[in-house]
C-alpha cells in the first residue's frame, strides 16, 4: 500500500465533512449532547438520595462525587453510537466509493469520524461536569490531575470510538450497526461500578464488573478527580485497556474499510 503524502490535510478534510454533517442535523447532535446531562441530573438529583442511603450514606460517602466520573464515562460510551452509525451509513453510500477510487490518505475517512466524535464528546463532557458542579459535585483535583483526567477521557473516547466503528462496519446497514454497538455504548457502563460500588453487586455480575475495562477506567478517574484510594496498578491497567481497545478497533475498522478494494 503506498502512502498518500497528505495524511493530515486529508484527515482534516474528512473531519470538516463530519462536523458539517453534525451541524446539518443539529437535532441529532443536541440529542447526543443532552442525554448525558439528563442522566447526570436524573441520577444525581432524583435517585441519588435513595442510592446513597442504600450504600451506607452518612459516614462521609458523597454519592454525587461517586457518580460523576461514572456518568462521564457513560457519556463517552453512549457518544460512540453516532460515529459507528455514521461510518456504516457512509459505507452504504456512493460518496465513499468515490473516496476509495481517489488517491487520498486511506485511513482519513474513518479517522474523520473519530476526530469529529472526540470534539463532540469533549463538549458533552464539559456540559456534564458543568451541571455536576452546579448540583454539588466537588472535585478536589489539582491542575495536573485535571490534565491527566482529561487526557484519560480523551484516550478512552478515541479507543472506544474506533472499536464502535469497527463493530458498526461489520453490519451492512445503519440499523444493524446501531444494534451491534448498543452493548458497549449502553450495557458495559451499567455493568460496572458507574452507579454502585462493586461491593454491593451480586457476585456473578460483580466478577464481570471487576474485570471489565470500564471499572479500571472509572476507578482511575475517581482517583484523579477526587483522590479516591486506588491500587497503584489500576491507572496503568486503564491505559493498557485504552491502548488495546484502540489498536484492535483501528486495525479491524481499517480492514473492513479496505475490504475488497485494490490494496
Amino acid at each position: 500500500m503506498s502512502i498518500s503524502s497528505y495524511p493530515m490535510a486529508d484527515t482534516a478534510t474528512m473531519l470538516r465533512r463530519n462536523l458539517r454533517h453534525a451541524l446539518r442535523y443539529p437535532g441529532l447532535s443536541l440529542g447526543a449532547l443532552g442525554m448525558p446531562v439528563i442522566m447526570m441530573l436524573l441520577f444525581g438529583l432524583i435517585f441519588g438520595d435513595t442510592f446513597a442511603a442504600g450504600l451506607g450514606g452518612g459516614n462521609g460517602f458523597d454519592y454525587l462525587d461517586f457518580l460523576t466520573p461514572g456518568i462521564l464515562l457513560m457519556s463517552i460510551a453512549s457518544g460512540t453510537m453516532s460515529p459507528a452509525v455514521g461510518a456504516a451509513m457512509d459505507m452504504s453510500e456512493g460518496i465513499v466509493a468515490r473516496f476509495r477510487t481517489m488517491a487520498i490518505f486511506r485511513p482519513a475517512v474513518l479517522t474523520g469520524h473519530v476526530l469529529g466524535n472526540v470534539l463532540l464528546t469533549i463538549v458533552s463532557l464539559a456540559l456534564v461536569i458543568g451541571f455536576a458542579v452546579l448540583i454539588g459535585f466537588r472535585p478536589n483535583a489539582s491542575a495536573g490531575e485535571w490534565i491527566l483526567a482529561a487526557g484519560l477521557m480523551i484516550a478512552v473516547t478515541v479507543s472506544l470510538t474506533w472499536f464502535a466503528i469497527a463493530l458498526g462496519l461489520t453490519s451492512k446497514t445503519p440499523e444493524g450497526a446501531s444494534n451491534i454497538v448498543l452493548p458497549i455504548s449502553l450495557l458495559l457502563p451499567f455493568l460496572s461500578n458507574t452507579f454502585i460500588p462493586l461491593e454491593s453487586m451480586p457476585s456473578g455480575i460483580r466478577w464481570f464488573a471487576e474485570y471489565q475495562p470500564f471499572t479500571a477506567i472509572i476507578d482511575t478517574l475517581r482517583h484523579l478527580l477526587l483522590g479516591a484510594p486506588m491500587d497503584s496498578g489500576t491507572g496503568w491497567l486503564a491505559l493498557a485497556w485504552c491502548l488495546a481497545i484502540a489498536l484492535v478497533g483501528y486495525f479491524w475498522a481499517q480492514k473492513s474499510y479496505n475490504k475488497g478494494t485494490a490494496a
Partner: protein
Amino acid sequence: MNSSSLAIDVAGLRKSYGDKLVLDGIDLKVAEGTIFSLLGPNGAGKTTAVQILSTLITADAGEIRVAGHDLHRDPEAVRAAIGVTGQFSAVDGLLTGEENLVMMADLHHLGRREARRRAAELLERFDLVEAGKKLAMTYSGGMKRRLDLAMTLVGNPRIIFLDEPTTGLDPRSRHSMWQLVRELVAGGVTVLLTTQYLEEADELADRIAVLDHGQLVAQGTPAELKRLAPGGHIRLRFTAPDQFAAAAQVLPSASRDDESLVLQVPNDGSVQSLRAVLARIDDARIEVDELTVHTPDLDDVFFAVTGQPATNHTDEKVTSR
C-alpha cells in the same frame, strides 16, 4: 497500437461472485484521447468492469494497466490519474453542491483560493450556480448526475470512467451530457463509458465493445460493427391485399410477408434509391399504408451478435402515412 499510447490495457480480466462468473476473460485496449464504450444489457458486467478498472474492487485474474500503471501493483498511481462517475450517485447529500466540489478540491490539495475558484467554475459550467448553495440531497436526478460529473472533473483526471452517464436523463440533459463528454475528449482526456443505449455508443464512441453475459461478443468502430449487421431496407405496409400483391410485382427484389402485408425492399438509405422505389409505386398507382426507412444501426449489430433484440429502442427513422 503502440502500448505506450494506451490509456487502458486489459488482458484476460476475470471476476466471479461466488460461483457466478461475472466477467469471463475480457480484453480491452483503449487508446489515449479516445472515447471507448462498453455496451451491454442489464447484468452484462459493465459496472463490475468499471469497478475493477477504477480500483474499487479487485479482479480474480487478468493483466490490467491503467494510465501506464499496473493496477495490481500500484493502485495509488492509478487512482491519481483517473476520475470516476459511478452508476449510482456519489455525491454527499448532506453537503451543498459547492461544498461537495470544494471537498473534492481539498482532497486534490488545490489550496483554498484555487478550490473556491474551481468550484465556482464547475458550478457555472454544469449549470448549477443557483443550486450550488442547496443541499445535494434536494437535487433532481439530472442535477445530481451533473454534480457527480463535476466532482469527477475537479482533479483534472486524464482518464475518466462514466458508468451509464445518461441513464435516467431527459433527452435535453442527455444531449448536453454528450456535448460535455465530447469537450472533455477534445481536451485530450480518455473516456471509458458504459451504456445500454446503442444510439449513445454510436453517437460518442471511437470504439465500442459489446459485452454480454460477461463476454465481449464484438468489438470495433461503430462503422465496423454496423458491417456485422444485415443491410438496410425500406419497409412498406399495406392494408389492401390487392395493393400488396401489385407492389410485390413492381418491386421484385422485395421480400414479402403475406400475412401482415409487409414488403421489405433492400435499400442503402440514400435519397436517390428511396426516390426510385417511390417512383415505381407511384407509377403503378399503389396505395401504401405506411413506409419506414431502416438503416442498419447498432440495434441490428446487437441482435446479430447476441441473438437478442436490444432494449428500449424503436427503429423507425422516417414514417409517413
